[in-house]
């Protein structure tokens, strides 16, 4: 059952990216380019998602001990704003700005068959793998 729910949520998330056009890098770059003909769509996409998620979280999740079909909630416990968080966000933002693609839209674009997406994902996996080396490296 949990697997079917995950599949359904994946499809729904992908549809959200497609309908909102966030799977289109041009649309994302037009948001990030504040010096040009600015397109605020991405901001509205995020606001709309939060408009659903925030009340849902406080009404349906926070009051419950456990989720409806699983044993427990797996939520991040960390609260400290540390160096890896800030460094990671800067590095991620630089990559996002270069191409206008983040992990979700990359997955959704796979079936388009553009070889650039395959290359993007291959390099993304390489980057994730390298982060393991960095976090193990203690000078």
């Amino acid at each position, binding site marked *: 059952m*949990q697997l079917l729910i995950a*599949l359904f949520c994946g499809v729904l998330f992908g549809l959200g990216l497609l309908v909102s056009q966030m799977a289109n890098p041009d649309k994302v770059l037009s948001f990030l380019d504040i010096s040009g003909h600015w397109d605020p769509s991405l901001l509205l996409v995020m606001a709309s998602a939060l408009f659903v998620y925030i009340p849902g979280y406080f009404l349906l999740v926070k009051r419950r001990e456990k989720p409806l079909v699983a044993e427990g909630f797996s939520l991040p416990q960390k*609260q400290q704003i540390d160096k890896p968080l800030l*460094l990671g966000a800067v*590095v991620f933002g630089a990559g*996002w700005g270069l191409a206008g693609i983040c992990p979700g839209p990359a997955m959704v674009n796979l079936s388009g068959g*553009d070889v650039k997406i395959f290359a993007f994902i291959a390099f993304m996996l390489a980057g994730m793998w390298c982060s393991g080396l960095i*976090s193990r490296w203690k000078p």
Partner: protein
Amino acid sequence: MTEFTPYSAIFGGALLGLSALLLLVLNGRIAGISGIIRTVLMTGDGGGSWRWFFLLGLVLAPLVAPYHAELPESIHVSWYLILPAGFLVGLGSALGAGCTSGHGICGIGRLSGRSLTATFTFMATAMVVVYLLRQLMSVLTA
């Protein structure tokens, strides 16, 4: 260059929020795509795990999408940019423990200070990078 599309932004955004909320209410899981990919990559996570099914759903979405919500026909980003972009997105999301979905929707959605900070940081950085890139391009093509 694209035009502001408020209705599709609101509707699509609501679908994103609904999907992430359902995954949390039903399965107790965070819809953080970089984290899902990383866990699958690093641990294999067993062939039958929910993470594989979520990723499969993302890949299949365009096949069930209505005709006016299709994929872009081609990716306009040049090879010189897309490869370093992929690498930095992978590295940064792994170091910073999240991307646009995990921090931007699920994290801010739980009013997490970490996620709010991360989202502002990567958004501002991306805007600066786009600005510098456009300036550089206009110098090179002048």
